[in-house]
């Protein structure tokens, strides 16, 4: 089955625009003034794009490769994990996992690179640039 994915994007945006426009009905007049007009303009433009894309080449369903999905999921897990295990450990784990996923055969180099990179970046931001980053244990590298 062939699906026109190009047409799907403006349709998705149209739905989102209608939803946001509906939200503005509960807003007072002044805060709603600019967003409403913008949404109407966006709606017209999106409709026009949808009309043009309707006749675009039909495409097969695009399959995202395992690496792509894994990168997305791992990135999300990494950000959540920072809160629980601190910046250094989560960054090292993330980099190690992604390096292995993206093709590293041996495990020693990814371990060294991921640990070193995370520590160096942590020291650069916290000690030299004095930008605080989440710790697992305060006053330590972790």
């Amino acid at each position, binding site marked *: 089955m062939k699906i026109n*994915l*190009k047409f799907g*994007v403006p349709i998705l945006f149209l739905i989102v625009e209608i939803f*946001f426009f509906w*939200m*503005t009905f509960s*807003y*007072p007049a*002044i*805060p*709603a003034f*600019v*967003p409403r007009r*913008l*949404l109407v*303009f*966006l709606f017209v*433009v*999106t409709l*026009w*794009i949808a009309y*043009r894309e309707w006749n675009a080449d039909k495409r097969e369903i695009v399959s*995202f*490769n395992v*690496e*792509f999905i894994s*990168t*997305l999921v791992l*990135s*999300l897990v*990494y*950000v959540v994990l*920072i*809160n629980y295990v601190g*910046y250094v450990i989560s*960054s090292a784990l*993330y*980099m190690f996992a*992604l*390096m292995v996923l*993206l*093709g*590293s055969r041996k495990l020693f180099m990814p371990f060294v*690179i*991921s640990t070193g*990179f*995370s520590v160096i*970046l942590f020291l650069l*931001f916290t000690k030299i*640039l*004095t*930008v*605080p*980053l989440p710790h697992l244990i305060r006053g330590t590298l972790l």
Partner: protein
Amino acid sequence: MLDNILLGFQSFITLQNLFLIGLGTFSGIIIGALPGLSTTMGIALFVPLTFSMDPLSGLCMLGGLYGGSVYGGSISATLLRTPGTAASCATVLDGYEMTKNGEGAKALGVGLISSFIGGIFSTIILISIAPPLAKIALSFGSPEYFMVALFGLTIIISLSNKQNLLKGIFSGALGVFISTIGVDVIEAFPRFTFGNINLFDGISLIPALIGLFSFAQVLRLVAQNSSEQEQINDQSISGKILPSMQELSSMKKTLLRSSLIGTIVGIVPGAGADIASFIGYSEAKRNSKNGDSFGTGIPEGVAASEACNNAVVGGSLVPLLTLGVPGNSASAVLLGGLLIHGLAPGPLLFTRTPHIVYGFFLSLFVANIFMLIFGLLGLKVFPQVLKVPKNILIPGIVILSVTGSFSIQNSFMDVYLMLFFGVLGYILEKYEYPIAPIVLGLILGPMAENALWQTLIISRGSYLIFFSRPISLFLFALSVASLIYAVRTNLKS
């Protein structure tokens, strides 16, 4: 004035000051190159370091940092498609394309020379005509700011290529709409926040930028085949570095025009290097014989953006020093640095402490020279990042993006927003929606809305005020002309 220049020269030309200018410039380049660390943040971090220094020494270091960081943003913009600072967004458009075409080193060289020329040009303007120019800047009120924003939004058309004009307009409008998220400026009513207090301040620009350019690029790198990335790795490092005199000569009009635009935009308080670089890029594209080639990887595109954003540095110091009105957020932090040292900006600063003022002006020349030297030394080194294998580069960029997004406000909401914009940017680019107009919309949207409401309050709801003030009317006419010209050019093809 010549006496003051000589006095300033005698005051600033010490080994200590030269060392501090070099240190500030080098640090600025590093800070600018790291996504998430803005020029403003860099200056804010270094101001406390100047407490123990004498005022001129402190200013010398901060001035070097200011100029260096604006240039530094072009390094990651060109090599990694990740603008280090918002000022380098327009550099991505041709800089990264040049890297893909195997001319990454040359793109860096062009960016460096252009940044140097823009910086020197605006410093000369700063020294020679600061006070009278500041008076014009001060006559800018909210109607004029609205028109500046409107003019900026018409640039969206010239940023979109012919096939995707409609999608470019969509992206720009989307960016402006996204900028309405948060509490509105008049009634402090939360719009589209879904009750999330972290969105009350709106969408932070830097995480959105990092997501749209950096994380989206990571997703593209993972999705693309490996041969394309290897091709980039192999070619860019051995290419020619500096543009030839002939190439520079062919770009001289662009360099001059962009430097002038950057200086003028810098002088206008509220308009920063991010807007300036897009305006400079757009005007270069409009006026160039190779306008159609912009966006495919030509040196002129990089030159336009970089000359413009570095020229903002000198321009932004004009209203700061003469009137105490900062030209942009970076110079606002510099104002803090001045006040800490007991220096009150204004006309009296020029009469009471001319050695400090003119010493600072002259130090900006030296800072630009240091930037050129460090940049030249780094030109062979910076592109080495392209040799890094994809399986190291990708997680490295993500970690840097996460760190950079978090460091703005120490907020994980910014990090989640960065990831969201990354996915959004990836999907939009996959279906041929340009990203640059979204950024322009995000920057100009708040400026336009705030100025609109301020104007309507002043005029008690009458729109005639926009057409009754000469500068506002001029800017409106410029916007209309720009729009008509751009639409005609696009429709003709």
